[in-house]
């Protein structure tokens, strides 16, 4: 089965600024892929290239093995998208907005449009507001309408750019549930986010963008698995604790005032505690610290305050 999204050295320059720098995306079919990165790291430009809105400066990409430049209508029909926030005509109702979008899609059956609109709106919980004008929708309702538009017809791939932006905790949960349901149905979901907790809870695969480059890509479990836990000892007797930990075989021992920490590696924590107690070190606390996804993310992308380009 070809990958849902595969790109080769996909690059976009705006003038001299390089927004996206030779990225090789590989989104397995059936995965929920979290596209992480700080603001301005090139996520939206990448999504626009995937959808054919922005033309790449160089490089290629394929959706389900077909090139978008050849069979645009057929390929993009399999893709539902929410790009950089919802945007619809303010004086059309939710249902009328979906009707207009469906009318623009020549591959759907006009005879089934009413039930499909109803189903899409119900799925995102907008059924009761279907007849109200878009302009009086709250940000959360607008976001839901955007997702409903992406669900107007069965899709193989959903590209969701910051889908929980502006949603309250309840709405965020609903989106999470929805993404889970869609994934169970076999839909590949590609969702961009700068919210790590969101990605952690929803995704099976992760790609991390930083300053236009894809700095890490793979299964979320592998990203987690690559983390080596550290043993952290609070004590008044720093020197004795450090030598006991060295005897236990720990690396990268760091000392500071009242605190010693070291890479635990494969050494069982029980063994370290035993050695510390034998050496007569007064231990105030002993903890095993696993770097959070956030720390890993910052390690990959920097502090996130550098906006590139």
């Amino acid at each position, binding site marked *: 089965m070809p990958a849902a999204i595969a790109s080769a050295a996909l690059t976009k320059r705006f003038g001299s600024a390089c927004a996206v720098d030779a990225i090789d995306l590989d989104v397995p079919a059936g995965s929920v892929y979290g596209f992480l990165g700080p603001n301005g790291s090139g996520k939206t430009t990448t999504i*626009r290239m995937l959808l054919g*809105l*922005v*033309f790449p400066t160089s490089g290629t990409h394929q959706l389900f093995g077909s090139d978008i430049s050849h069979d645009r209508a057929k390929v993009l029909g399999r893709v539902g998208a929410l*790009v950089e926030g919802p*945007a*619809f005509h303010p004086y059309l109702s939710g249902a009328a907005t979906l009707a207009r979008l469906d009318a*623009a899609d020549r591959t759907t059956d006009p005879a089934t449009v009413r039930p499909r609109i109803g189903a899409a709106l119900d799925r995102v919980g907008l059924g009761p507001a279907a007849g109200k004008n878009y302009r009086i929708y709250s940000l959360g309702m607008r976001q839901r309408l955007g997702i409903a*538009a992406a669900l107007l017809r069965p899709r193989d791939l959903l590209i969701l750019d910051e889908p929980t932006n502006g949603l309250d905790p309840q709405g965020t949960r609903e989106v999470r549930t929805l993404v889970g349901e869609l994934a169970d149905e076999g839909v590949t979901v590609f969702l961009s986010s700068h919210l790590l907790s969101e990605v952690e809870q929803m995704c099976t695969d992760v790609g991390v963008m930083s300053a236009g480059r894809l700095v890490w890509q793979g299964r979320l479990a592998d990203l987690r698995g690559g983390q080596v836990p550290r043993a952290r000892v609070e004590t008044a007797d720093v020197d004795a604790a450090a030598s006991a930990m060295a005897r236990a075989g720990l690396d990268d021992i760091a000392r500071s005032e009242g605190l010693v920490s070291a890479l635990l590696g494969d050494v069982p924590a029980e063994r370290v505690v035993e050695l510390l107690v034998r050496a007569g070190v007064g231990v105030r606390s002993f903890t095993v610290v696993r770097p959070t996804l956030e720390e890993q993310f910052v390690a990959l992308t920097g502090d996130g305050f550098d906006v590139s380009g």
Partner: protein
Amino acid sequence: MIFRRRRNVVLLTVLALVPVLICAAVRASGRDGHGGSIFGGITENGLFAALAAFLAAGPLFLPLVVSVVAGDSIAGEASSGTLRYLLAVPVGRTRLLAVKFGAATIWCLACVVSIAALGLLAGLVFFPNGRLTLLSGATVSYAQGALRLAAVTGYVGLTMLFVAALGVFVSTSTEVPIAAIAATLTLTIVSQVADAIPQLSAIHSWLPTHYWLAWVNLLRDPVDTGDMSTGLLVTLGYVAFLLSMAWARFGGKDITS
């Protein structure tokens, strides 16, 4: 969509009121017309009301109303962000341009037909209607006159396609609809100003607006269609040129709105 926007409905209403306004003004002034001119003829035959409205609205108001819709066509979608969703549906860019120009064409026709219809109606209400004395002095039956009015309406509508095509082209180059509307109207006015400068007579016959009033020839007997067919050809040429420019511009454009 065009006819559902309140702004457009208001514009169309005001446009259709132009002949009514003219009738009311002429009637209120109480002076008898002299015949031989379009405005002067209104008191003698109501058919002239619609023609006077075309004369009054033709150079500025009608192009304005057309450029509002045509200039807004792509830029309006871009500024509200709906363009990216339409293109991601997916709608082909060529098809989107074709639909937008088609809608602008329908709008042009709706505009001229409203002027003609309300003009006809106001003329029937306010003034005598019978045999029509043409500008050249000959008289024709009312039915024949109405037919000529229909031809005038068609001609004005077709010449407005230049404004529509210009508007769609400018609209592909910006995300600010009001800028596209203003630029379209400005270029139309520049053409008319150039047309009024005698020293530029060498280029006059190439100006898109030069033949805009050639429909006056329909009010003479025999009808000289020479200027009108040239006018239609020039319009057609500009429309083809502007639409291919729009296509070239829009087809390869990055949509970042």
